[in-house]
């Protein structure tokens, strides 16, 4: 970690840094370290959040108010959420924290005034991998300036005090002490094509195939489900492409002039054109295999290909649905190999 404990550069992070930089930040650090092409960036750590929260708590308590909430009292929760989010987004940052984020943003820009970033919340709890927690956190794309970046970091922090998030914690009686949020700030990829990749089949759990989904423009259109992506199934080991579903991709998401993203209609010929070439599919397979090998388990990956054709990895997290299932033996174990042929010759069981 760098000289201050409030900023962690991807290149300095490992997966073990999760408690301070969250799952996303730690994973991007680990990938960077493993030599995978990841857009450069940094994490604003939980220490930074803690420092900010300390300052807020000093002015007026926050955590005790959340802990006092009755999870069934929706009106009370809504009112508190509004109040706390406003405070997190508006009250002054400790000066050293603000300086640290501005400095990191400047270092990322390396003098490029056109730098745009993605700001994403990066949760530290294991629950964050759980579907029940997913979607409660925020992602802001195409953030234009340092000031905007800081504002979006605050919004990510504020999402900890959304109605859903607080209700979830109260329902599960999670202590507020230790509830913290890291935020990832990452150079934005001006994606020609982007999407997701599962290194095992999401439909059958088959570890020998990968499923790749992609669409034109930013990957947000795929992740949010606004576009039916093209879909491929590719043999992890053989590279055989056994499924090619090229869909009608009616829009793509691109940068909006004032920051953020917008939908753009696509010309008819592009809509039904495959958004990836076979070479790109094979490149994705290769990098997917590398990441899976690195972690020793199946991954759920977000990727993008920029306008120059370069493949970049935006996120990788462990696949959780199939991995959690009990593994029954494929065939009953027997010392006599010949007994197995009865599955073919012995008739239906």
């Amino acid at each position, binding site marked *: 970690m760098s000289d201050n404990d409030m900023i962690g550069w991807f290149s300095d992070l490992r997966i073990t840094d999760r408690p301070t930089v969250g799952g996303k930040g730690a994973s991007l650090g680990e990938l960077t370290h493993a030599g995978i092409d990841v857009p450069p960036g940094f994490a604003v750590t939980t220490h930074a959040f803690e420092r900010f929260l300390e300052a807020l708590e000093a002015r007026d308590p926050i955590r005790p108010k959340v802990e006092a909430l009755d999870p069934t009292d929706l009106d009370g929760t809504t009112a508190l959420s509004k109040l706390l989010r406003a405070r997190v987004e508006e009250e002054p940052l400790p000066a050293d924290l603000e300086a640290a984020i501005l400095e990191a943003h400047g270092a990322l820009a390396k003098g490029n005034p056109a730098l745009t970033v993605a700001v994403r919340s990066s949760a530290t709890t294991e629950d964050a991998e759980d579907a029940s927690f997913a979607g409660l956190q925020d992602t802001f794309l195409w953030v234009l300036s340092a000031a905007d970046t800081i504002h979006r970091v605050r919004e990510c922090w504020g999402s900890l005090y959304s109605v859903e998030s607080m209700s979830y914690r109260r329902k599960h009686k999670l202590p507020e002490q230790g509830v913290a949020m890291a935020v990832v700030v990452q150079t934005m990829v001006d994606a020609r094509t982007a999407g997701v990749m599962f290194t095992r*089949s999401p439909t*059958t*759990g*088959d*570890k*020998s*195939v990968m499923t790749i989904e992609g669409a034109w423009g930013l990957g947000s259109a795929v992740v949010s489900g606004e576009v039916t992506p093209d879909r491929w*199934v590719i*043999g*992890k*080991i*053989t*590279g*055989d*492409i*056994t*499924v*090619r579903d090229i869909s009608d991709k009616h829009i793509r998401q691109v940068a909006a002039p004032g920051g953020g993203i917008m939908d753009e209609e696509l010309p008819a010929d592009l809509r039904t054109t495959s958004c990836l070439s*076979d070479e790109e599919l094979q490149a994705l397979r290769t990098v997917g295999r590398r990441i899976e090998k690195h972690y020793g388990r199946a991954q759920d990956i977000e990727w993008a290909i920029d306008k120059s054709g370069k493949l970049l990895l935006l996120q990788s997290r462990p696949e959780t649905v199939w991995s959690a299932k009990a*593994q029954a*033996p*494929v*065939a009953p*174990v*027997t010392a006599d*190999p*010949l007994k*197995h*042929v*009865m*599955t*073919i*010759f*012995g*008739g*239906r069981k």
Partner: protein
Amino acid sequence: MAESVKQFPLPSSLKVAPGTEAAQEAYPYYTQFSPEDDERFWFYNSMHFPEPMHAFDMVTAEAAYCALGSFNTRVHCLPTTKGIDHRIINGRVYIGGVAVTDPAEIAERVGHFQQRAFYYYEHWEELYAQWKVKMRALIDEALAFPKPYLPDLEPIETTHTGKGVAANHNLLDIYRKTLEGYFRMWQHHFEFLLLGYGAYLTFFDFCKKAFPEISDQAISRMVAGMEAEIFRPDEEVKRLARRAVELGVDGKFLDGVTAEDVMASLDQMGQPGKDWLAELETSRNPWFNVNVGDGFYHYHRSWNDDLSMPFAALPGYIAKVKAGENIERPMAKLIEERQQLIEDYRDLLDTDEDRATYDQLITLAHRVFPYVEGHKFYCEHWYTNLFFNKIREFGELLRENGFFPETADVFSLTHYELESAIIDLMLAWSSGSAPVGPRYWPAKVAERKAAIKVWADHVVPPALGVVPDVIDDPAIVMLWGITRESLDVWLSDDDGTSKELKGFAASSGVVEGIARVVKSVEEIGRLQQGDILVCQVTNPTWAPIFQKIAAAVSDIGGSMSHMAIVAREYGLPAVVGTGTATQRIKDGSRIRVDGGRGTVTILEDALVLEDA
């Protein structure tokens, strides 16, 4: 919306094409559909018999099913299945399995099977070595049959040696031995086959359970052998290409020049040319005893009978040799790749128990596979060529004696009728009068040849009769790849106008190009560099032209077919078993072949010229 129940027509509703009734009658009584057959399920064996059968060629079904059934029903005692019944209508062979359904009978057969089949698995190498000896002896026997011949007078030796048997008797002797040898060959053919496929399928089944989305071709790549005899003919052509360059005679091999002309010019050019021709002879025996089909039709001639296939391939191979390319199969690399594939899939398994089972099954599959791959060269190719050529010699003799106008007309007679024609000739030779055949056969032969033409264009339902709920017959699943799902596809509303054809994904990759629909080996000269080959039967003996083409598509074949294996080695996209590619794709059309998905898309239909 109520789902309308779709059915295949009943056998009794199938009509013999008008005008071909007499030709239909020629097939033996036991191959004619009867009313009782309506109770059963039948499917058209388009895999082995994609074209209407000449009356004689029917013996290929008969001899094969005599043997297949014996081994399933009574030798190895497969628990849930017996043999295959077959019927012929409009020249097409329909087959039906005989399933064992009584649980008590299955249980009893399981006991027998484990005693018998397991013995084969346990002694596989030794029994297979013995099989090769048996098979070679059978081939040598066939090679020793004399050419059927009737002298005007017996040679003097017949009397001076007290031989006591005249030449006409030899005809019957040779014919019966030829026919007997052919039936015996099929017995040998099925001695191991189902057990071999079963062991392979056991591994296949394990892989499909462990890796539900694994492609068939990935599994077959793990099992396929590298050194099967059937690869050898192509390797011999490559050897001849290299020798042509070494001997400095390569200039004589030009695209579009016939084999005869090349050989004549080599013969005239002195020692190097003669040396190459001697090399050719070495390759021809036995390796050019491969026919250009699957061995079920008399007109699928062997390379030895028609050298156009190897000679069409030589100029391309020679060009590659001269360019310094290594055209031999990279055996070490292929074996290493196969091993790597096996290990990579093994690593994906979750538990040590699964890895142990996987090891057992791949070991067993590798043990049995040399037979599965190797037997075809001896049975369907070498022996079958000898057999059909011997019958052709009888055809020649009968033609000379006025029985019919062309030698190949002999194949319009059933094997029973051929024996009767031979006896007719024997009687005539012995009595000194004229045979009756020349007044009897020409009209029948003409009628039957006309029927074959009619039947070729006649609609063939893919199946007949009652659709079973499940296809639980391992023999049918193994040999024909027919499942309940494939029946549903047959029953679906495909009106034949769709631009996309589905088949087995045999070899990955996507290619667009011009389709060259090649219906027989005589047409291979039409293939241009970069064309997509569209053919009816996929056959390993077509391998030499793979150097020329960009992709391959066939009507018939599975992902384990040799052509699929060869296509993968050449890195050519291939889709096999499309059913109708040669009918649906017009020659010269622009098509896209996706060998990973198993689809062929017609992009642009060829223009049909009015007076082409």
